[in-house]
């Protein structure tokens, strides 16, 4: 810390060491650059680019934004489905007493009617998934190979979104 005594008569204000020396140098560099370089970069855009940019961007961006939620549809549906399936298995086991009843032996249509009557399921898509003979679990094969780049891009997008959400 140093005091700049000439114009600072004991008011107690201080500046970092070498502040004025550095300030002068930095200022000269800045002026020099602005003088020689200006603020133009030399980059150009095609004629009329900005006039039509909004019209070009809006549909494309809108489309992509609309498509995005589909990514997680399977898992979004799968959670309630699995929760219900687990619950049913417990209910059926408890109610069955000595009779041996497991979920596979219950007639599908009976189960379906029961669930609809009980309003367990809130839409047709969930019903479809639940009664698709568990195809869904076969389709989500963990051994299926996923292209590394695709996976990388996906994770990157998700991470970016998280960053955005947390500002």
């Amino acid at each position, binding site marked *: 810390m140093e005091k700049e005594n000439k114009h600072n008569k004991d008011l107690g204000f201080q500046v970092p060491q070498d502040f004025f020396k550095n300030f002068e140098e930095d200022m000269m*560099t800045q002026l020099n*650059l602005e003088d020689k370089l200006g603020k133009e970069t030399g980059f150009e855009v095609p004629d009329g680019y900005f006039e039509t*940019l909004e019209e070009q961007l809006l549909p494309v961006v809108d489309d992509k934004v609309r498509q995005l939620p589909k990514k997680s549809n399977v898992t979004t549906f799968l959670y309630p489905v699995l929760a219900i399936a687990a619950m049913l298995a417990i209910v059926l086991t408890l109610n069955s007493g000595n009779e041996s009843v497991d979920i596979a032996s219950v007639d599908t249509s009976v189960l379906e009617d029961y669930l609809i009557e009980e309003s367990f399921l809130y839409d047709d898509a969930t019903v479809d998934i639940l009664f698709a003979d568990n195809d869904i679990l076969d389709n989500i094969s963990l051994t299926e190979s996923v292209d590394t780049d695709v996976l990388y891009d996906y994770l990157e997008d998700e991470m970016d979104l998280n960053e955005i959400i947390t500002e």
Partner: protein
Amino acid sequence: MIADKEYEILELLKVPHSTEAGYRMLLKEFQEQLYWQIRKLVIDHDDAHDVLQNVFVKVFKGIKNFKGDSKLSSWLYRIAYNESMTFLTKKKKQLQISDAELQAHLVEQIEADVYFTGDEIQLALQKALAQLPKRQSEIFKMRYYDEVKFKDIANLLELSEGAVKSSYHIAAKKIEQFIKED
């Protein structure tokens, strides 16, 4: 003035029936500024266009979660910066080259670019920037051209303000030197 616009945009986006008007106003207000910010980082026009598109996808997706803790413009600037960096990282991976090689590659592209009409000094500047460490070059572009406050750059890059200031001054001196020699 800008704060009023930001407020107006956010108000439009709150209500479903005016969302599209909000998107339009957001595009109109920020597309050009963000484009130039991105262009300085990715250099090529077509690449800048693609990145800009990705930026707005992220923005439209995330805007509902924008709480207004920072200025809308700073938030957009951050997304544009992140997207540009993601793009450059991918490009580097695709070409299997280092940061320095990528910068050299981008400068080579400039020389053949029909959308670069810079004079010798502007080309020399791009060459000088390509030779700086990545961070110094980024900081220089943000401060010198975009006139972003040191504090905001520090925030964006998660560095201390002091570190950003000294990086900038080092970069500025190197460029001054480079241009003198050229």
